[in-house]
């Protein structure tokens, strides 16, 4: 089973179409989503959170999965994006572009803020990527973690960022369409990357840095680039987050959040974009599903009164159980369509 080349692995599509095909498919879906769920705030909210988590997981997967660098500070980049985009957005709040309907003008501003937030995060990603020239494995991990914590402290001490109370009043302009658009972009980038020479170079670094370097791969450059791209999207995710969550505060971007994203990446299978997507969706839904499950058990009685706290320890145990069941992650390093045929039609013997 080969683990590469997305473009080549989808047969039967005229080459001229392949470049734009995903966009052609995605746009109507996004439009449908935005309209279809207009009256369902909870579904919208959950899907938005899910979208943000997908962006985070897919982007982290570029560094952790594809490049094999071990970053556990993704929440830090997310925070940079969230706060920068939030502050910019707050300052633009009173303005609209004349001649455009307000809704459109809002989306234009939102896009602008997201880009600014993303770029700010990308710059941070560059700064954090630099140490990766010298550090490996767990040492790199702890540096990224430390970086995330430093960002948290900075935010906590900056009045412009609302300190511990956080920023509120950011225009809530990020709808499912915008979230979906960025999910689409990040997935497209990740997949197309994986199918290109660049992606192969990243894998080569993951497998053996010395050999990759000897085969002409600018390993340091690639590592830094992977960091930059990954943190750009984390920043965008943060920016989106800030535009549909009524208030952002430092407590939302602690290393626990980073860990959640790492869990998504590993659970999806290191290097597998679809895996990261599925895991992110699953892990976002899990707590809510547990909530539904426990609520269904009845609201009376002493145990049921405590139901909602039970979610978290159960969530922890489920992580353990899932990893034990599928240690290689959902799809291993493969993608959904490479694995699915094996699961679906018939169970091959020899595969216990």
């Amino acid at each position, binding site marked *: 089973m080969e683990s590469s080349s997305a473009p080549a692995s989808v047969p039967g599509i005229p080459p001229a179409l392949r470049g734009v095909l995903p966009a052609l498919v995605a746009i109507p879906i996004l439009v449908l989503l935005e309209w279809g769920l207009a009256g369902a705030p909870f579904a919208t909210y959950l899907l938005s959170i899910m979208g943000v988590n997908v962006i985070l997981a897919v982007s982290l997967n570029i560094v*952790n999965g594809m490049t094999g660098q*071990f970053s556990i500070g993704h929440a830090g980049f997310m925070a940079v994006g969230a706060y920068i985009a939030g502050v910019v957005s707050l300052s633009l709040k009173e303005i609209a572009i004349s001649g455009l309907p307000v809704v459109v003008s809002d989306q234009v501003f939102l896009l602008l803020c997201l880009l600014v937030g993303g770029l700010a995060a990308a710059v941070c990603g560059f700064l954090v990527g630099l*140490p990766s020239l*010298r*550090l*490996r494995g*767990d*040492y790199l*991990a*702890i*540096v990224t*973690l*430390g*970086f995330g*914590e*430093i960002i*948290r*402290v*900075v935010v*906590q*001490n900056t009045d412009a960022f609302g300190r511990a109370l956080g920023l509120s009043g950011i225009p809530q302009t990020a709808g499912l369409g915008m979230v979906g658009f960025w999910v689409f972009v990040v997935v497209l980038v990740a997949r197309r990357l994986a199918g290109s020479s660049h992606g192969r170079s990243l894998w080569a670094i993951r497998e053996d840095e*010395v050999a990759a370097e000897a085969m002409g791969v600018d390993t340091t450059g690639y590592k830094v680039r992977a960091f930059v791209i990954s943190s750009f999207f984390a920043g965008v995710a943060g920016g989106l987050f800030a535009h549909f969550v009524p208030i952002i505060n430092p407590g939302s971007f602690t*290393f626990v959040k980073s*860990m959640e994203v*790492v*869990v998504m990446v*590993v*659970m999806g299978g*290191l290097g597998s974009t679809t895996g990261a997507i599925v895991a992110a969706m699953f892990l976002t839904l899990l707590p809510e599903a547990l909530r539904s499950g426990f609520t269904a058990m009845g609201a009376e009685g*002493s*145990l049921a009164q*405590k139901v909602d*706290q*039970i979610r*978290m*320890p*159960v*969530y*922890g*145990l*489920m*992580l*353990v159980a899932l*990893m*034990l069941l599928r*240690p*290689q*992650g959902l799809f291993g390093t493969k993608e959904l369509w490479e694995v699915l045929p094996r699961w679906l039609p018939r169970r091959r013997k020899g595969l216990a």
Partner: protein
Amino acid sequence: MSQLLQHLINGLASGTIYALVALGYTMVYGVLKLINFAHGDVMMVGVYMGYATAFALGKQAQKSLLGVVLIFLVAMGGCALLGFLIERFAYRPLREKPRLTALITAIGISFALSYGFQLDIGFLPGAAPRAFPEIIVPTEWLIIGDRDVVVWNWQVMSLLIAVGLMVGLQYLVFKTRFGRAMRAVSYDHRVAALMGIPTDRVIAVTFMIGSALAAGAGLLYAIKDTSVSPLMGLYVGLKAFVAAVIGGIGHVPGAVVGALLLGLVEEFVVGYAASTWRDAVAFGILIIVLLAKPGGLFGRVAAEKV
């Protein structure tokens, strides 16, 4: 001047606790190459075990020497068992799998413990912090001036224990057969098995020692800061991990030096600069140390011959 001295003592005292926790971290990392994110939470569980024991002993008995020893024994023994179970069921099945896999189960265990202990069902303690009983009655060991500088008996005790443990562990790792086995397992457990080393047992025992250490450290920590809470492990665990990395993770004296350094730096940042920036400085130091010495102060970056 007296203030400086007091800060020095405070810094050493908190560094000592970091050191004790960091020792366990470093040991487990040493053999498993696993960042055991649940380590802090194991420590927390240990403290609660000690707390329960003290409670069961009652106000008088818990202060007697025997009582104290019993409390430590129960907590450390209990945690050794807990560590064994965690290793056996959450880490061992993943031994041959990518390292990150075990990291996730570690995170899972950490969530389960820290959130689980916030429940108040049955014997579980609930989220509120509790006062840890004064099992060691604090007495001044040294007083300078008009209580300008005070050194307490438990501060001296913790420091001695930390240094003693460090020496002991260093001896264990470098001078004993078991230590040699540990190191062999840490580099390559498959080959270690070819040398006749029972790798599973070595790892399990290391884990148990590490967890027992965590419990001991946790008790000293609770004695020092007089409280226990389900979330206490998260924070101390993180700081201890940072300390271990500063010293060079896997390196026993390094963990202690890194921890004392971290304790002192934090103390002085708070004492003489802005207390709000303490954590930023702590992590800043970490990053600077790693940039200057990518393997930590004492660690070696694994020699790789091409």
